[in-house]
């Protein structure tokens, strides 16, 4: 089945130690998004890729970076995780301007110790 897969499901990292979360898709969607969802809050868009074009939200901290080496994969890099970065990170895809809504992965829950 076509889907969006996030690995790992749970990630524990040390304060200040770089961490990478991954997302892959078999939908061939050209847009990939990363959302941060803190406990009991709405998902917040960090950035997205439209094909190879990277688009950062204005209030996304510099500590967060992303890479998209090809259509299928997208990575979220947190250069120096702080305790406040503990959250569920959701990857989603969509097909350009199609209004079908997003397809979400199951998320990666990041714990910072």
């Amino acid at each position, binding site marked *: 089945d076509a889907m969006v897969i996030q690995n790992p499901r749970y990630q524990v990292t040390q304060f200040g130690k770089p961490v990478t979360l991954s997302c892959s898709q078999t939908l061939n969607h050209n847009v990939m998004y990363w959302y941060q969802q803190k406990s*009991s809050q709405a998902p917040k*868009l960090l950035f997205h890729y439209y094909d190879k074009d990277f688009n950062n939200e204005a209030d996304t901290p510099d500590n967060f970076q992303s890479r998209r080496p090809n259509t299928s994969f997208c990575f979220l890099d947190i250069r120096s995780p702080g305790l406040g970065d503990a959250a569920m990170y959701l990857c989603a895809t969509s097909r*350009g301007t199609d209004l079908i809504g997003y397809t979400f992965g199951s998320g990666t829950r990041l714990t910072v110790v």
Partner: protein
Amino acid sequence: AQSVTQLDSQVPVFEEAPVELRCNYSSSVSVYLFWYVQYPNQGLQLLLKYLSGSTLVESINGFEAEFNKSQTSFHLRKPSVHISDTAEYFCAVSLLSGGYNKLIFGAGTRLAVHP
């Protein structure tokens, strides 16, 4: 600017009772509205959407939502809930910008169905 307000952070209800989860939006342009459901430690799943046409939209598991332009609302309803409906529900509005589809979410409503 577009925004979404979910008026209830938590809604407790007994099994087989009806439920309504409220959602209001603000937008200066045409809107496309969505409801997503999130089960514990899972991603978001699309429940239903309003793009155009009939203002009443339905999902396969008995939920429905009605787009009310005059009241800028998109409330979610189900006539009889099940224990398995316990989850977090997010209302979202779509903004088409620069060739992509940006979703703006409300803060969510936690539906707790009790036996």
